[in-house]
Structures are given as C-alpha cells and as structure tokens.
C-alpha cells in the first residue's frame, strides 16, 4: 500500500509504501511522532490518506464509506497500551461484550469466550474485574477481546508500554502464538529488548519516511 498523509506543517507519512503479507509478524519502530500511529489509524480506517491507497485483504479501504467501516473493523483486532477494558465488567464480560455488540448470541459467547480466555492463559480468572487483575493479565484480556472474533489482522499499539520486561515477554509469546494461527500481527513499539529477541521483520520510520525495512531485524 502506498500513502501520503500531509497534516500540519509536514506530512505525518511522506510517500510511504509498505506491503505486508498474510501471516506476517511486523514491528513498526521509530521515535514518537514519526508516523507509526498514523499507519495503525489508517489500517483501522480512522484516518484516510490524502494521496495513495490503503489496501487490506486485497480490498481498497481508502474510499470505504463510513457506514461500512464497522463491518470492516470486525476483520481487525486491536490491542493498546492502556488496555481499554470496561472497568465494571469481568474478564469474561469484557470479551463477551465485544461479541454481543456485533450481534453474536449469548450462546456463541458462552462457547467461544472461555476458549479464548484459556488460550491467553486466563483460565480460572474469568470472573475477575480488571482492577482485580495485574497489568499483564489485563492486557491478556484485551488480547482475548481482540482475538475472539478471529480477525485476519491483529494491530498492537505499544501493547507492552505499560508492562514490566518479564510480563512483556509473556505478552509477546501470546502474540507469537496468535501469529502462528495464521493471523497477521502488526505491532508498534519502542521496546528494543522485545524487537531484538523476536527477530521478526522490522520497519523503522523517521519523520514520516521509511528508513529501514529488514526481515529478521533488530531494534538497531
């Protein structure tokens, strides 16, 4: 996909062209304000490029009508630095909520949610509230919520930003496991440790331009 995204004084992304294959695991790295988050937002159809195209799952989403956006989003899972869980719902309810609001029945939720909570390693903690869980566990709930609908792509925006190194590595193992099921994982991070350990494709962005695109790369 090619995209130029002029905004404010200089473009946030300047003639960036990246192609990510299905099933890949990609890190976007770069200093704050380099344009990493803009890429995530474009993949989510939250912003549209002024020039160029965003193609997801061989469909051009640049011109996607806004009323079609919800359906498009269902093929993308999302994890953030701040977890974004609902504080008044348990782990189970948080994941089930994501299913129910896209029209899945309670019966489907009862079957699928325990499965995915088991997968992320939260078996037995389904009925804890977010404040009763550690940061790492909360992020697992968020990953479970992002993955429960079996998306084609999992976007992770600094998912380890709030976690200590050991917990971060556990989350990365989890993302790796999800990647092995065939899900494309796109992750934005500042965490050099993790990038160096994983040895996956690394795309470095600076001032809106790609300065490095390396298979099995390191943080540098």
């Amino acid at each position: 996909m090619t995209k130029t995204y002029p905004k404010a004084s200089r473009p946030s992304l300047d003639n960036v062209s990246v192609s990510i294959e299905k099933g890949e695991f990609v890190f976007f790295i770069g200093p704050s304000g380099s344009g990493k988050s803009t890429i995530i937002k474009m993949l989510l159809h939250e912003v549209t490029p002024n020039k160029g195209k965003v193609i997801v799952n061989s469909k051009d989403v640049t011109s996607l009508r806004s009323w079609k956006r919800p359906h498009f989003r269902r093929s993308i899972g999302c994890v953030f630095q701040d977890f974004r869980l609902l504080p008044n719902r348990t782990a189970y309810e948080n994941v089930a909520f994501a299913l129910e609001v896209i029209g899945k029945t309670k019966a489907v939720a009862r079957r699928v949610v325990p499965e995915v909570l088991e997968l992320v390693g939260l078996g037995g903690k389904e009925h804890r509230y977010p404040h009763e869980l550690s940061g790492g566990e909360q992020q697992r709930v968020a990953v479970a919520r992002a993955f429960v609908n079996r998306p084609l792509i999992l976007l992770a925006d600094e998912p380890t930003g709030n976690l200590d190194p050991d917990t971060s590595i556990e989350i990365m193992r989890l993302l790796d496991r999800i990647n092995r099921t065939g899900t494309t994982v796109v992750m934005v991070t500042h965490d050099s440790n993790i990038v160096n350990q994983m040895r996956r494709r690394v795309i470095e962005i600076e001032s809106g331009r790609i300065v490095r695109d390396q298979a099995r790369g390191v943080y540098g």
Partner: protein
Amino acid sequence: MRVKYVLSEVLVGLWRNVTMTIAMIITMAVSLTMLGVSGLVYNKVADMKNLYFENVEVSIFLEPEVAEEQRTALDGQLRSDPLIREVIYVDKTEAYERFKDMYQDAPDLVSAVKPEQLPESFRLRLVDPEQYRQINEQYQSVEGVDQIVDQSRVLDKIFNLFTAGQNVALVAAIAMAIAALLLVANTIQVAAYSKRREVAVMKLVGASNWFIQAPFVLEAVVAGLVGSILGLGALVGLKVFLFDGALSTLQGLFSPVSWGEIFLTFPIMAGVGALVSAVTAWVTLRFYLRV
C-alpha cells in the same frame, strides 16, 4: 438478546441522569401542550366560523321617510341579487317586537320607544357571508337606504382575537420546543459521555452504527413520548377545569371541545414529540460520537 440489551440500556441511561430526564420531559410536555392547544383553537375557529356565519345577517336599514316605491324597488333588486340567499323584510311593528324582545330587561327603555321611531329594514342572508363588502358597496348609495350593518364585521374582530391566541400558543410551542431540543441534545451528550468507554470499545470491535446509537436515540424518544402523555394530561385538565369548569357559562359562545378532539391530538403530539427527539438525538450523536 439485542433488543433486551438496548431496552435495558435505555432505562439505565434515563435513570442515571434523572434530573436532566425530568427537565427534558417537562419542557417537552409544555411544548407539546401548547402545540395541542393551538391545534384545538385552529379547529374551533374553523368550526365556529361555520356556525356563526351560517346565521350571520346583513341588515339594510331604511331612512325614516322612505318612499313606498323606493322600498319596492330595493326589494326587487335584493331579491334578484345572486349574492343573496334570503331576504326578510322587517317593518316598524316587527322591528318593535324584536326591540322589545332584545331589551325585555329594560322596560323603561321599551316604554320610551314607539314603533314609529324604529326604522324599517331588510335582513339579508348571503350566499357567502364573507362577501358583505360587495353588498355594502352596491346598496350604500341606493336611495332610501340609511345604513348597512353587517354582523360579520364584528365577528371578524372576535375571530381575529382567536387567531391571535392561536398564534401566541404556536409561538410558545416553538419557543418551548427549542428549549426541549437543546435539553435533548445536552442530555444525549451527557449520556454519551458517561458511556464513552463502552462506545469506544463498540466502535473498535466494529459494532454497527445503529447499535451504538439506538440506546441514546430511544432514550430521547421515550422522553418525547412521556412528554406527550403529560401533554395529553394537561389538555384533559384544561378541558375539565377551564372549559367545562370556569368557562362553562360561556358555553353558548364557544362551540364545545369534545373528548374525541382532545384524544385525536394525542397521536399528533406523540408523533411530533418522538420524531423531534429522535432527530435531535441522532444529529447530536453524529457530531458527538462521529459514528
């Protein structure tokens, strides 16, 4: 399951912000009552116009020294006039009878007046009562005619008063509607803010727009409907206490307001209330949630 979810969200939403909900419902109710009143007045004025103009008369009074042939000539002219439906000639004796009837409470006045002093007159019923001006122009200058008195001119003044009242009610309805609109917009914003986490998650996981908006829009619609029910109550109260109560002595003057008419205004009030609330909520959400 989704219907149940939406409905429980609506109730929780209304309850969470109960003071605003009440304010919203009250302004909505007042506005819709005003709308109902102005609709009823509009109906009544039309009814009463029919009723009154049916019986309205144009009287042509003749000069005291009118000549016999002048009167006959005028009589013939009137009877052949296509604008006039009916002509009744009232001579001095009959005028005196009518005078006695009208002033039976004032015997002094009656005894002071003699039949010869009263003018003869023609009483006319017009095909279309609104055309009295033409009658006036046509016969004012005819010899022997003293004065043309038209009741509908007086009625016009009364009806202008009613129309003014109706306009006041309409303006009040619109002013209150604007207040109600702003309150709906505000309430919906507060509701959306208090549910911003849920909304953010819903948008993230791809919940459809209508599913995100439905609880908020329905909240406003419920408030609008409750407001219209209160408005109906207010109209019923107005009929019972004002029309049938305090104003019952004037019953002959107004045509009565029936229960049927009052209940017929309800669907209009409910429809307007629900529609206005729904559209306001929807527009507010489009700006506020950008969904």
